[in-house]
C-alpha cells in the first residue's frame, strides 16, 4: 500500500473528486480532443488565448483518477501564464514522465511533482500525459490527438 499512497496522493484523489476548471467553454480560441483508446480516457481542452496569454482554460470529459487530476491540476497551473510558459510546463511534465527532469525543472513544476510516482508505472504514463498532450495539440492547432501509436514520442 505504500507504493500506492505514493501514486494516489491525497491531492490527486482530491482533484479527481473535485476537478477544477471542469466543463466546456462556450467561446474559445483553441480547442483539442485527446483520446487514449487503451483505457478510454477521453478529454476536450478549451482555451482562450489573448496576447499570448492563457486567459481561460478548461477541460471536459471522462477518464481515470490520474488523467482527471492531471487535467485539473494542469489547468490551474497554466491559467494566466504565457503560451511560452505553458509549453515549458508541457516539456517539463513530459521529461518528468521520462524520468529525465533536472532539478531546476522539478523546482519549476512545483506541486505537479505529485505525478512523479506515475513515471514508475509505464502503463499509466499515458494517462498523466494525455491532458498535456491534448493541451499541446490545442496550442498548435491540431484538432485531435491520440496517445496510441505515439508511444515513442511520449513515453520517452
Amino acid at each position, binding site marked *: *500500500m505504500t*507504493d*500506492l*499512497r505514493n*501514486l*494516489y496522493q491525497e491531492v490527486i*484523489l482530491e482533484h479527481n473528486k473535485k476537478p477544477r476548471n471542469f466543463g466546456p467553454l462556450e467561446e474559445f480560441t483553441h480547442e483539442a480532443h485527446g483520446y487514449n483508446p*487503451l*483505457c*478510454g*480516457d*477521453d478529454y476536450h481542452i478549451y482555451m482562450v488565448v489573448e496576447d499570448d496569454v492563457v486567459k481561460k482554460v478548461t477541460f471536459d470529459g*471522462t*477518464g*481515470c*483518477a*490520474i488523467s*482527471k487530476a492531471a487535467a485539473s491540476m494542469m489547468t490551474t497551473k497554466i491559467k494566466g501564464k504565457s503560451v511560452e510558459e505553458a509549453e515549458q510546463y508541457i516539456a517539463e511534465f513530459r521529461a518528468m514522465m521520462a524520468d529525465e527532469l533536472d532539478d531546476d525543472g522539478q523546482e519549476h513544476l512545483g506541486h505537479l511533482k505529485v505525478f512523479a510516482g506515475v513515471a514508475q*508505472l509505464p*502503463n*499509466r504514463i499515458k*494517462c498523466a500525459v494525455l491532458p498535456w498532450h491534448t493541451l499541446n495539440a490545442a496550442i498548435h492547432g491540431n484538432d485531435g490527438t491520440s496517445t496510441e501509436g505515439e508511444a515513442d514520442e511520449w513515453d520517452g
Partner: protein
Amino acid sequence: MSAQSLETPAKIDWDAIRRDFPILDQEVHGKPLAYLDNAASSQMPQQVIDRIVEYQTTFHSNIHRGVHALSQKATDAFEETRSLVRQFLNAREDAECIFTRGATEGINAVMHGYGRKFLKAGDEVVITHMEHHSNIVPWQMLRDEKGIVLKVVPMTDDGRLDLEAFQEAITDKTKFVSCIHVSNALGTINPIKEIAAMAHAVGAPILMDGCQAAPHLTLDVQDLDADFYVASAHKMCASTGVGIFYGKREMLEKMDPFLGGGDMILSVSFDETVYNVIPHKFEAGTPPIMPVIALGAAIKYLTAIGRDNIARREDELLAYAMEKLDTIDAFKLYGPRDTKTSVISFGIGDVHPHDIGTILDTAGVAVRAGHHCTQPLMKRLGIPATARASIAFYNNTDDIDALVGAINDVTEIFGA
C-alpha cells in the same frame, strides 16, 4: 504429466495441476502473482512448453511439401493436431478444421470468403449488442463495400440477449447470423443452439464466436449445428499465433479463399490457377506450424484433466469469489449471475476501472481494465469500462483472496 495420472474426478489434485504452470510461481511487486486475466489470454502448462522445445530441437521443418524425414514428422504432428481439433469440436471431418492466425482471422475469412461472394445490397446480417469488435468490424467493412444491412439484437440490463428480439430480428431478409457464444466482457453463456435454429429456420448460416466458450465448455459443433465456429488457441493454454476456424464442408467448399499463396493451390499458371481442396484452400503460405503443434499438446492436456472437471472447478472458484465480493458494499457486478462462465466484470463505486486495475496490480493481482474490445456493450451499460477478473482451473482460493483483499485497498484509498 500430472493430468494423466488422474483417475476419477474426485481425486483431481488441483495443486499439482497448478504446479504445471511455471509462470504462476512468481512475485509481482513483491506479492505472489494472482493471474486473473485468463479471458484475455491463458497460461501454458509445462507439458506444452516441453512440446514446443521438443519440436524446435528435434523436428522443426516446413511441412506438406517435403520428402525428408523431418518434414514428414512435422507434417504428421501438424495434421495430428487437426485431428485433435476435430475431436475437441466434435466436427465430422479433419478437413473442416482450419488453422488461422487467430479467431479474428476466422471471422474475416467468412466475411471475405462467404460474405463478399454471396451477400448483396439489402441482405441482412444479424449480430448482437454483445459482440467483440472482431465480430462487428468485419461486417461493417462488408456493409461499406456491399451495402448489406447490419441488424443488432439488443441486450438486457443484466447482460443477456433478448431472445424475443432475436426472433423478431430474423426475417426472410436475414442472410447471415454471427453471434458470440460466451461473452468475453460479462461471461454470459448464450443459448446458441436455439439461436442457430432461428437462423436455419430462414435458411441463414450462423457463425459462432466461441473464443470464450472453448476454454470452459465442452463443445459439439454438430449438436449446435454451427455453420462456422471460431476459437483462439492462446485462450486454451496454447500459444498465440494460431486460431481454430471450423466450417461445414459444404460451406467451406463453396466459399472463396481470401489469402492467395503457396499450399492453397493445386496448380498455378498465369492464365489459370486451381485452388486446392479444403482445408488447404484456406491455409495459404507456411502455417504457424509450431503454434499448431503446441495447440495439439494443449488439447491433450485439457482433455486429460477432463473438460467437465475444468468447468466444475471454474464454477466453484467463481462461487467462492462471488460470495466474498458480494459482502463489499461498493462492489458492483455487471452481467448475469448465472448461466455464465468464470468471468467477473465489475466496478467499485465510481472508481475508474483503470485505477482499480493499477491498485490490484500493485497487490500482484492481474485483471484487465477497459472496454474488453466491446465498446458497444459498454455503451449499452452506460459505462466507459469495467474491471474484469477471469478465473481458470489453475487458479485457487488464494488468488481469489488476493483479489478480494486488493479490492478492499481500492475502497480504502478512494473512500468508495
